Structures are given as C-alpha cells and as structure tokens.
C-alpha cells in the first residue's frame, strides 16, 4: 500500500444502483481501481456494469474479500452503514456525504478505531494515490503520480491544487480529502502521520482553511525534528468573522480560527506557506527541494 489504498485495494461501492454510484463505478474502474462489489440495500439487483451487487456490506465483503468501501448513502443512514462497513472488514471507508451529525461522527470514529479501520470524511471527495488507485470522485485528469503528499479540508480546492501541481509536473503520492466537518474520521494530525510514514512521500502539502484546529496539528507535526518538509495554503483570509463559510467548521470565532493566526503558527513551525493559489506550486516545489536536499 502507498497510503491507505493501492492497486491491491478491493473496493465496494455502496449505493451503486443510484446514478452517482453507477458513474463512480465506471470512473473508478477506468482509473484501474479494483471495484469488486457493489451494495444496493433493499434492492433486488445482481449486477451493475459487470460488478456483482449484494444486498448488504457484510455479504459483499465476505463474498469478495473487499477491504475498502466508498459509501454513497444519505446522512440519515450513514451511521449504521459505516458501522456495518467497519465490522464487515473494510479497513478504509470513504464517506463523502455531508450532514452527518457530530454525535454520529464521534461514534463512528470510535468504532473505526476499535476495528482498526480508517474513515475518510464526512464531506470529502475521497482519497487518490495517482497511478495506483482512486477511492473517490475527484476528476482523475487533475492528478499525476509523484512524491508530494497532499491533505485538503476542501474537495474543490484539492482539485484546483492538484491541477496546478500536475500542470507544473509536480506529481502526488497520495491526495487525501479529510473533509470540512469539525469531527472527522481521519483528521489532519492522523493524515500527516500517514504521509510521514509513507516511503513514497517526500514532502507534504496541506490545504487548510479558517476555523477548527487541524492547521495547528500540522504545525505541531512540522515542528518535529524529523518532519518531512511541509508546504501549506490557508484560505479564508477575506472571510468575515462569525460567519460559517459553507463547511461546518469553517468559521472565525476566536483569533486562533483566523487565517492570519494559522499562517503565523505554520510559518513558526517552518512550513512554507503560500500567500495565495498563484504561489501554491512554488511553495510545494520549495518543500520538495528541501526534501531532495535532506536526502543527499
């Protein structure tokens, strides 16, 4: 495995009978991901696009030895779907949906931890290891195989960032969308730890925003003596305080929530922080150059 997924990952798509599920099945297969099963709960469906479909996750995992899942179900039933996935043997669970109650997010986080699984999301496009596997719905052409690990709280921003990196020839080892919710499955600290341990990742790019504490976790990591060189872009400098900017966690309440405070903390920890999107690639390149220098 690179980080969490690779060519050997055996993927289930839950909600494969819906339009989005069908698109996702074709899209993942086109990327070379092994989609071994679909789940269409409550539906009497045997197959979608050549993929065997099962009535529940447990049966799907048992019959196909699947170990990863992307689950397209509404927040109302997500809690149970994720619990089922944890206990059916899925080690990586992508939940792209938004609107999962915080209480449920806390519970599934605990359940994943108890089952040795990792949840990506909620409110995420998923995870991609370019050239290896994709478990999400990000536009594939934006990504290029390489050695920069990317973490993003925002899906759309991660596409834009990857597109810019790819256009500049900067490949990515794994791009993880950790999602914009306050309580996440995989949070920034944990995502950074995974990239830190990944031999295919030389440097890290973190795409953050106002609100929440993830950026400080990244700063704590970057301040470690053995940290991989890290670059970052923090958006939301023009957002007014006290207003939730789309993401449930993206609000400037206290000073610590602000872009300025976060940038200062990251710079203090030797993170190369881009001033804006335009300087993103040069910040990433600078981190990779540091990495190359260290490896000599």
């Amino acid at each position, binding site marked *: 495995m690179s980080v969490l997924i690779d060519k050997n990952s055996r993927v289930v798509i839950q909600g494969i009978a819906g339009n*989005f599920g069908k698109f996702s099945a074709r899209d993942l297969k086109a990327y070379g991901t092994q989609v071994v099963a679909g789940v269409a709960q409550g539906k009497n469906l045997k197959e979608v696009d050549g993929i065997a479909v099962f009535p529940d996750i447990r049966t799907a995992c048992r019959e196909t030895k699947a170990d990863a899942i992307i689950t397209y179900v509404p927040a*109302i039933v997500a809690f149970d779907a994720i619990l089922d996935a944890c206990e059916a043997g899925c080690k990586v669970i992508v939940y*792209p949906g*938004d*609107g*999962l*109650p*915080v*209480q449920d*997010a*806390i*519970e599934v*986080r*605990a359940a994943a931890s108890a089952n040795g699984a990792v949840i990506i999301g909620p409110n995420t*496009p998923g995870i991609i290891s370019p050239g290896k596997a994709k478990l*999400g*719905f*990000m*536009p594939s*052409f*934006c990504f290029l195989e390489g050695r920069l690990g990317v973490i*993003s*709280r*925002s*899906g*759309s*921003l*991660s*596409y*834009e960032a990857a*597109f810019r990196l790819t256009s500049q020839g900067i490949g990515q080892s794994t791009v993880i969308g950790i999602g*914009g919710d*306050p*309580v*996440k499955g995989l*949070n920034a*600290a944990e995502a950074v730890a995974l990239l830190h341990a990944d031999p295919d990742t030389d440097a890290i790019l973190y*795409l953050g*925003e*106002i609100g*929440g*504490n993830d950026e400080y*976790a990244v700063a704590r990591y970057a301040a470690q003596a053995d940290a991989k060189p890290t670059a970052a872009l923090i*958006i*939301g*400098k*023009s*957002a*007014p305080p*006290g*207003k*939730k*900017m*789309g*993401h449930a*966690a*993206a609000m400037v309440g206290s000073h610590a929530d602000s872009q300025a405070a976060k940038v200062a903390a990251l710079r203090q920890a030797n993170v190369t922080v881009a001033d*804006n*999107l*335009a300087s993103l690639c040069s910040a990433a390149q600078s981190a990779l150059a540091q990495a190359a220098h260290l490896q000599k």
Partner: protein
Amino acid sequence: MLLTEYEGKQRLREYGIAIPEGLLISKPEQIHRWKGDFPVAIKAQVASGGRGKAGGVLRAENASQLLTQAQTLLTMEFSGEKPRSLLVEPWIPHEREIYLALTIDVTAGGYVIVYSPQGGVEVENQQPVQYSFGAPRAFRAQALREILAPVESDGSLRERIITFARRLLYLATAIDAITVEINPLIVLSNGHLLALDAKIVRDEAAAFRHADLSAAIKTSRKREPRAMAQALAGNLMMVWLEGEIGLISGGAGMTMAAMDMIADEGAQAACFLDCSSNPTPAGYSLAFKILDAEPQVKAILFSIFGGGTHIDRVARTLHDILKKRRSKKPVVIRMNGTGRFEADAFMQSVGLTNHPTLEAAVTEVVTLASSV
C-alpha cells in the same frame, strides 16, 4: 443553532439542572407579570456573545426601574441584533461563580468537559481544565474527579460538578447539542448549584431526528433578509458580504479561494455563494436570480471546479440560464473538472468564454465590475 439564554435554560431545567425562576417578556408592559422579589436581573435575549460587557444585563431595584430598563434594552442592539425578548430573574446572592461546559474537542474528535473554578465574565483570563473523553460511553466520573482535584479543593462541590457533567452529557446526546456552556454556574450557601446563564448550540445536521430543531431552523431562516432566506430555502450556502463581485461557486474551499483572490486584486466579493449542495438547473437559476436582483452586485464570477459535479452539464445549464436572463450584469466564467473537454467543446459551440485559470477570470470580473 444557538439557543437563547432562556431556551437554553429551559433545556437545562428539563434535564435536571437547577435554574432561577424567571419571566420571559417581549414587551415592556408585560413587566407587571413579575411577581417575584426585587432586586432582579433583566437580560437581553440575543445570540451574540459579550452581552454582559455591552450592557445587556441590568439590575433593577424596583418595579418602576424595571420598566424603564425593559424599555431601554428593547431598543438597544447587540452586534447588530435587537433582542426579541427579555428575561427577568431574581438577583441571587452567591459566593462563588464557576464555569462548566460540555463541548466538542475537534482535535480528539469527541466530547470534552471544560471546568474553571472561577467563572463569570473573567473566565477568559483563566486556564480551564479539560476532560476530553471521546464518545459518550467513555465518560468516567473517576477520570473527571482526578482532573478536577488539583483545581477544585472543595470535595463536595467536586462531586456535584461530576453529577452535573454527567447530566450535561445526557442532555447533549439527547438533544444533539454540540455545546452546553454554563457561565456562571453559581454555588449557593447550601452548596447547591444554580445555572445563571446558558449557552446551548445544537447540531443542525441532526435536525432529521428532532422535529423541534428542524422547525427552529426553518423559523430562523425565515427571519433572514430576503436574499438569504431565498438562498437557504433553495439549499444554497450563502453569506452576504460587502463587495461588488457576485460569486457563484461550487465547494466551500474554492468559493473561499475565489473570494481571497478577488481581495488580492483589490476588489471584494458581494457574497459567498456555494451551489455544491444543489448543483442543479434550479440551484444555479436561483443563484443568478438572487445576484441579479441585488444592486450591490456589479458583475458575476461563475467559478466551478467539478468533481462529483459534471461541468459539461453545468455548461448546458448555464447556457440556458444566460439565454433567458434579462439582467445586463456581466458574467465571467471559469470552469474545470469532471467533463471539462465536453464542456469546453459545448461552450465554444455556443460562444461562451471559459477562462483557462481562476486568475484570468478574477482579473476580468474585477475589471468589468469597476467599469460598470
């Protein structure tokens, strides 16, 4: 959804936390309903913080003073918000104010109890102790006891705090609250505790299992200015801003990134308007309708980097909208992502310009807005 102090206190009482016997009024003439003793506290019911420092809590010694103060408070504004009601409560003598809250520790991804032995307005200068325990079932009285011990020498109070913390947790899980803060929680001479204030924030995502929360959200949306109410009703995420560039975007991250870039160009966005929750013809039409109707908006930037949203479909939708649209406000387009080749071919065929980069689109829209 932030509850008012009064609403929050009703919840506390419902779950076994004592509160003062208060009276809620919405007009000064209702003051005569107060049958309790004097002095009393009269408190503006507003959602914004810092009410105490802003003069939103007054003390009245008698009925006539109370009436005057009610009249005063109802005409005041707190961070732009007029109080919809006032809460009258007995002025309760007490020796100690403490701080107790249950909230979410986003770093740990779970619940946390926060305690400070000195509450009240000075709490911000304190370093509170925290007991972060994750899922509700992981709460342990003994763990909290050990965390409280170094800062709270009164053993009997400590045990009461633990009992209250357990109740806050029960309350939070029962009503899907993500913050239940009591500041101050006062210690009466008999050792009992009384919540003098309450700040409860409920998780709007949990509205599907709480009809009252769902209703409260609908009510609060109706109270928004017309444009906001329209956007929310259409499932668009919108925040109204001060600028002149109307921004129709997809995804919170790219919407903020575009705002930032507009600011870097010396202009300002008129709004944060994220259509990713409703990326349909109806959603985009509504977005244009709202911005076209707003005189503040001089030009519109339509910016989508689609993943799950297929931009070839968006391009067709956009073309339909622009054909029917009467407003003359210029529209600058930048789209990329899933379906971009089909989108580019279509746009070329119908004469729409898709800017290759966000920078190019922002420069263009800023220029157009300033030349209107």
